[in-house]
């Protein structure tokens, strides 16, 4: 597609050389109203469509419209596209597009020395510089000397390009992101066609706006062709991904689609009870659209109602799911206990964000692990699983529901902001190839005997008897139950028995789960242990070190509770264990207490994911010891 586009262009373009790259990282940044997320997602989609592997990192403030032009309002979208398999959005950016001074100031430290810097020169006037707190104009004071700076009059050129459409100045300025996109598309030899199609779909009902955006996009592209400032451009060839059909997918979309798939595979209609919360709300938005799959979404009055409604739906035989982020999970905690006590299948999704309290709602963190493992009263174990990449959210959702119904238990699924908003290519599965999820409901009984809701099968799961079934009437609830009969019981020995039984049942999940795998040497000097959304950074760092012959292995946990059955033995095979996580050492503490391993930590709580560089440095430091 890229070459077709190029041949259609003028000879001027052909006269500019193209420099092949094996990967590039680009970041758009501007005001939160500048459409940077849209620009980033268009470049992502287009790069995916030309066959690159992609990884993205949208980064935006919690305020929908922070004061315009200030540093607080800066929104960014970073995309890494490559001709090889990649796992992260890149540590630093090769090209930075800054729509105003505040965006430039806040993002410049991430631009590589000598990197491409495109700025909207029109935004660097007195007011814009003041809002950004600039004492002098960075375009003039020499502070950008180490970069390839392209001062482009984006605002002026965009207004001129869309003049014929009769838009107000404000409306015309909303097309600036398309101009910037057009220029970047030219710079990296990307086709315009997918974005042109997007413009028709998104703005088709407002023809003047659609046409203006199309013109701005084209004007940006043509600017790259014609201006003498750009003497060359870049290309990134398609990646050699495993054969198949692909699409780009975000973590939240994959989570929602995984739920749809699990519902179909199990034959249980999906009920999603939730209360809006960043960054989990997109799961609700996605599912609310899917009514034709029989999905019932319930936007409850609060977090507690969301989970308790899901418990009611589970009792009724639905695939019951509640989704939230950390503060919401805190509110749901008591009800999670009810689900454990009543032994009903339920999925609890926690798309983690930086806490505690309201914390930094749009930033990523893995600091809810202790909450997931321990945050309940009483002896209250439940399986905890974590997704490792945006696409992996799909598989984790299915696996979690498989466990929930097999063991009759709530299952907690951990995602995070980085996975939720980030995206990567997803090899589209055929649903015929996905394993069905067996669900059994006891049939009607006519023997007049009281139903026994707490008898157990070989995995210690109790039966899921549905209201409406004659002869199986029974009551469940939060009070301790007598084993087998389910009658309320205060018998001391029974309580001891039931507490241990529930613990044994959840421990059985480890026997059911696949053994923990390791990437790299099966034994040796160092094992890097991680979990959840840090997979990309750790996997990339370890691969980089392999190229240098470093003796390091990587194990990434999906099962946080119970821990994999072979994990203790696996940890013993390495001289050192480095637990890398975006918290102050929650998994490390658990590993140390469970296995008496002298694990050390790589920890970070800045609201941002690990960079590959800092993981590499940490590993090298450990390897250099002795």
């Amino acid at each position: 597609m890229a070459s077709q586009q190029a041949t259609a262009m003028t000879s001027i373009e052909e006269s500019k050389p193209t420099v092949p790259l094996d990967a590039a990282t680009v970041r758009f940044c501007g005001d939160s109203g500048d459409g940077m997320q849209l620009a980033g997602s268009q470049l992502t989609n287009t790069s995916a469509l030309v066959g690159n592997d992609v990884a993205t990192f949208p980064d935006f403030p919690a305020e929908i419209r922070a004061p315009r032009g200030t540093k607080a309002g800066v929104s960014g979208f970073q995309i890494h596209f490559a001709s090889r398999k990649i796992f992260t959005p890149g540590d630093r950016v090769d090209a930075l597009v800054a729509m105003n001074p505040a965006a430039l100031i806040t993002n410049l430290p991430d631009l590589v020395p000598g990197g491409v810097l495109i700025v909207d020169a029109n935004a660097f006037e007195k007011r814009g510089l003041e809002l950004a707190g600039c004492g002098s104009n960075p375009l003039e004071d020499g502070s950008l000397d180490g970069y390839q700076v392209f001062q482009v009059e984006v605002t002026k050129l965009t207004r001129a390009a869309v003049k014929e459409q009769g838009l107000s100045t404000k409306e015309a300025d909303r097309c600036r992101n398309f101009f910037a996109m057009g220029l970047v598309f030219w710079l990296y030899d990307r086709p315009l066609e997918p974005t042109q199609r997007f413009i028709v779909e998104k703005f088709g009902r407002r023809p003047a706006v659609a046409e203006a955006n199309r013109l701005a996009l084209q004007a940006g592209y043509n600017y790259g062709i014609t201006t003498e400032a750009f003497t060359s451009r870049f290309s990134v060839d398609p990646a050699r991904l495993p054969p198949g059909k692909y699409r780009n997918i975000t973590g939240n979309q994959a989570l929602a689609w995984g739920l749809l798939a699990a519902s179909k595979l199990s034959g249980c209609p999906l009920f999603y009870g939730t209360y809006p919360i960043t960054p989990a709300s997109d799961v609700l938005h996605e599912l609310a659209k899917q009514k034709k799959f029989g999905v019932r979404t319930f936007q409850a009055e609060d977090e507690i109602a969301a989970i308790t409604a899901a418990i009611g739906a589970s009792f009724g035989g639905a695939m019951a799911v509640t989704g939230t982020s950390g503060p919401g999970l805190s509110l749901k905690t008591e009800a999670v206990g009810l689900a454990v006590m009543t032994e009903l299948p339920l999925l609890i999704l926690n798309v983690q964000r930086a806490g505690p309290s309201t914390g930094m709602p749009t930033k990523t963190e893995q600091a809810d692990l202790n909450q997931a493992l321990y945050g309940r009263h009483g002896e209250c174990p439940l399986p905890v699983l974590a997704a490792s990449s945006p696409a992996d959210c799909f598989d984790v959702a299915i696996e979690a529901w498989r466990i929930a119904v097999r063991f009759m238990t709530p299952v907690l699924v951990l995602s995070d902001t980085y996975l939720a908003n980030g995206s990567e290519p997803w090899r589209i599965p055929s649903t015929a190839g996905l394993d069905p999820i067996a669900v059994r409901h006891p049939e009607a009984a006519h023997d007049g005997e009281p139903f026994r809701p707490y008898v157990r099968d070989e995995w210690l799961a109790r039966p899921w008897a549905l209201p409406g079934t004659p002869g199986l009437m029974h009551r469940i609830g939060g009070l301790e139950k007598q084993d087998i009969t389910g009658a309320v019981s205060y018998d001391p020995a029974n309580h001891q028995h039931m507490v241990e039984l529930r613990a044994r049942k959840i421990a059985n999940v480890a026997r059911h789960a696949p053994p923990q795998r390791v990437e790299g040497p099966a034994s040796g000097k160092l094992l890097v242990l991680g979990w959840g959304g840090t997979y990309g950074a750790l996997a990339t760092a370890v691969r980089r070190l392999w190229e240098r012959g470093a003796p390091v292995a990587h194990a990434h946990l999906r099962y946080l509770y119970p821990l994999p059955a072979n994990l203790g033995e696996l940890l013993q095979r390495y001289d050192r264990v480095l637990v890398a996580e975006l918290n102050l050492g929650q998994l490390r503490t658990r590993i140390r207490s469970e296995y008496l391993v002298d694990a050390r930590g790589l920890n970070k709580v800045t609201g941002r994911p690990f960079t590959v560089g800092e993981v590499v440095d940490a590993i090298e430091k450990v390897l250099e010891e002795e």
Partner: protein
Amino acid sequence: MKTDAAPSAKKPSPNDYASGQDVRWCPGCGDYAILAQMKKTMASLGIPREKLVFVSGIGCSSRFPYYMNTYGIHSVHGRAPTVATGLKVVRPDLSVWVITGDGDGLSIGGNHLIHAIRRNLDINIVLFNNRIYGLTKGQYSPTSPLGKVTKSTPLGSIDNPLHILSVAIGCEGTFVARTIDVNTKHLGMVLQRAAEHRGTSFIEVYQNCVVFYDGAFEYATGRDTRDETTLELEHGKPMIFGKNRDKGIRLNGLEPEVVTLGNGITEDDLLVHDERAAEPSLAYLLSRMRQPEFPEPIGVFRAVDRPKYDELLNRQIDETIAAQGAGDLDRLFNSGDTWTVE
């Protein structure tokens, strides 16, 4: 009747609805009468036991589901309406009953109660109001009168009490009623009307706690006082009360007033009850009538039709499937921009 299932061939007896678990309320508790009337009502309506689900929160009243030989969930404090919501939304075929109390439903669970009522799910909510916390042994509740001396209010309660029927009507509840535990005939009538209503039925039951607030409603139950202190509402009938049926409620401007019949005042001057009034103003006015200024109304304050949440939610799904066909996951996954790697 709320269930789609046909009644079983053999007419069930109230005893068929007893779970056999020992009932552990205090001797003399008003809850016994409610339990008995519930079993009787279910039997007379012939609702199959397997189609019934009783959902409760925490408190004395919330033990109720254990005593019914039906399906049941004894959930967390205050949240029964939400559990019922999730259940009813996925299982509209079931007859779902929420059993709650003044602490469970109005204090810790107040939020859920108002949202359940405004959504108008096709469920029934029975609130046992005994004006005290019983299970936690005698603290004041949101319905305790001002000045009530309890363990937690040794100098008297300073909380203005909540009048839940005013709240239920404010939420535009489609079925709002009040009855009294010992008035078994009236209680049975109200439960039956609630069962027959489509939409959220909300019933406040004056219920006596013999241990922590004995006699809270003695004025409304005592043989000598009840006719003067309560007003039995009947649709289309003038509001008359009193042992000699010689008193009535008349509207004076926007305010109700008690009048004595005779001396030129006739039944024609009295307010006539209209439970089906589209506007909830009359029902609200009735909910404000309290002792000692007024007799307290019992019966059905309001019974109107309004779309039901569970029905609307499921209809959106049905209509989408009818218009677009059932969802195809493979089609969804392959929609939009895709590319193939050879």
